[in-house]
């Protein structure tokens, strides 16, 4: 029934060309010997060398990674708790407000989130730096984590947990031995999402940081405002490469896990 369609083939080709050509150009020009980004002057890796010698960029990268690891880890814990509360805790006073506070940051413009957090930090006299960025990133990314985790919690069979409780598990053991392994893929993807959101964030970090902590996006933004630079191209290429490898690895792992799970289920169903 499915015929080859010129319309579909060209929609896919043009669409993916549009999505990928700008990034491919960026990668190609990171290997350009010329300082002028628009003139090709032969292959060179010198901008990567310059980048590795640029202390400011290295420091910013270190701050960014530190912030991303800490904030995504706290966000995953808080987000999983919040998801559990939303799906399992039943009714309690203030539930509507709670779910509102979970969903609102997802649609809140970053400028508003950043401004409001900054005004809070100034109001309570907290020195701005790594700590304040971590607090800010944790707050908005925990909401993303809880959305991802709660969609998994909704779809899973609660009787498994009840069985564990009946068999003598404490509620915490039941969570650790039954619930957590089942929702683990969602928790991990929630962590990854929180991590990339934090790595990526310019606006909220700009509002909530102080002179002591400059993150990579802030550094890139101030460099890029003055125009295109080959060093930034090199940096972008490294970041694109890391993300590509990460996403492909993650998808291969989940695929294998799905295959293994399907096999286990077949084994379990086989009459003995």
């Amino acid at each position: 029934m499915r015929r080859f369609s010129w319309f579909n083939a060209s929609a896919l080709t043009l669409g993916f060309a549009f999505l990928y050509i700008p990034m491919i150009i960026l990668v190609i020009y990171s290997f350009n010997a010329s300082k002028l980004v628009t003139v090709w002057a032969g292959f060179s890796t010198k901008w990567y060398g310059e980048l590795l010698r640029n202390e400011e960029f290295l420091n910013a990268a270190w701050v960014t990674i530190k912030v991303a690891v800490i904030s995504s880890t706290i966000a995953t814990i808080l987000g999983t708790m919040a998801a559990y509360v939303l799906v399992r805790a039943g009714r309690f006073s203030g539930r509507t407000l709670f779910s509102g506070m979970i969903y609102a940051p997802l649609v809140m413009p970053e400028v508003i989130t950043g401004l409001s957090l900054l005004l809070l930090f100034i109001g309570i006299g907290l020195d701005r730096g790594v700590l304040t960025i971590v607090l800010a990133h944790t707050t908005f990314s925990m909401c993303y984590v809880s959305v991802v985790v709660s969609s998994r919690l909704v779809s899973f069979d609660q009787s498994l947990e009840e069985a564990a409780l009946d068999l003598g598990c404490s509620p915490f053991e039941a969570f650790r031995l039954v619930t957590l392994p089942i929702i683990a893929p969602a928790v991990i993807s929630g962590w990854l999402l929180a991590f990339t959101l934090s790595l990526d964030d310019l606006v909220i970090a700009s509002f909530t940081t102080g002179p002591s902590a400059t993150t990579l996006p802030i550094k890139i933004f101030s460099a890029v405002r003055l125009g295109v630079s080959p060093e930034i191209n090199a940096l972008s290429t490294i970041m694109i490469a890391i993300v590509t490898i990460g996403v492909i690895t993650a998808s291969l792992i989940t695929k294998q896990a799905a295959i293994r799970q399907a096999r286990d289920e077949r084994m379990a169903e086989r009459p003995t």
Partner: protein
Amino acid sequence: MRRFVLIAVPYLWLVALFLIPFVIVLKISLSDVALARPPYFPQLDLSAGWEGLTSFFAELDFENFWFLTTDDLYWKAYLSSLQIAFASTVMTLLVGYPIAYAMARAAPEWRPTLLMLVILPFWTSFLIRVYAWMGILSNEGLLNQLLLWLGAINEPLTILNTNTAVYIGIVYTYLPFMILPIYSALERMDDSLLEAAEDLGCSRLSAFWLVTVPLSKNGIIAGCFLVFIPTIGEFVIPSLLGGSGTLMIGKVLWEEFFSNRDWPVASAVAVILLLILVIPIILFQRNEQKQREAEG
């Protein structure tokens, strides 16, 4: 007890770092700018007791909101943000729909790969994806070089630092948000419906309009909101690709805060931006809920 802790920890975190900051913005939007640290007045002085509280509330007023209506920079910025967001949502739909459609019609073994190709840019830094266009759209950029070489133009077009560049940037960065919901709606569609329509005498085109489009309606609505809502407050795209003529409210708020250091006006700008966003957000939630009920 355990349940109480489980609820209290994320609850208090969000109250402290989401709700209270918001109340502070509201409060400062009603204050006056002052040459002090922090640069606004009045300050809440709890040590003065009840009197401090009453004098504090007596000093709050809507002056900043009044100021926003008198200076036409602000309402022009709101209007142009809405207009840019609306136009770029329509453009993203026009670009995204055919891609989502072709993905849903592709052979099933190809679909996971295509889906990953759409999601991959989403994981890549937003800033870098916007930056990639700066080198392409500038006067000496690759697009102009290509067009000059082809002989399509005689002198370089000015695209960077105009609204055109902003539109291109928005369509490019938000395209996955449009494709994914439409794709998931189209993928669920039963092919036999199209066959039935054609058997009953529909042309392929009218079968598309009468069957495919209505069945993907929820995906289209979700995609449009996912593009429209964040675009209104967008800051990075207008400040890197737009020019001095590009008025968007996210950029105005940023400059009001960082360049003019007028915190009360910046807060008032934020409050009104949020009031504008409430309408599309409620519509979006209602659409999601309807969809969930239809599925559940």
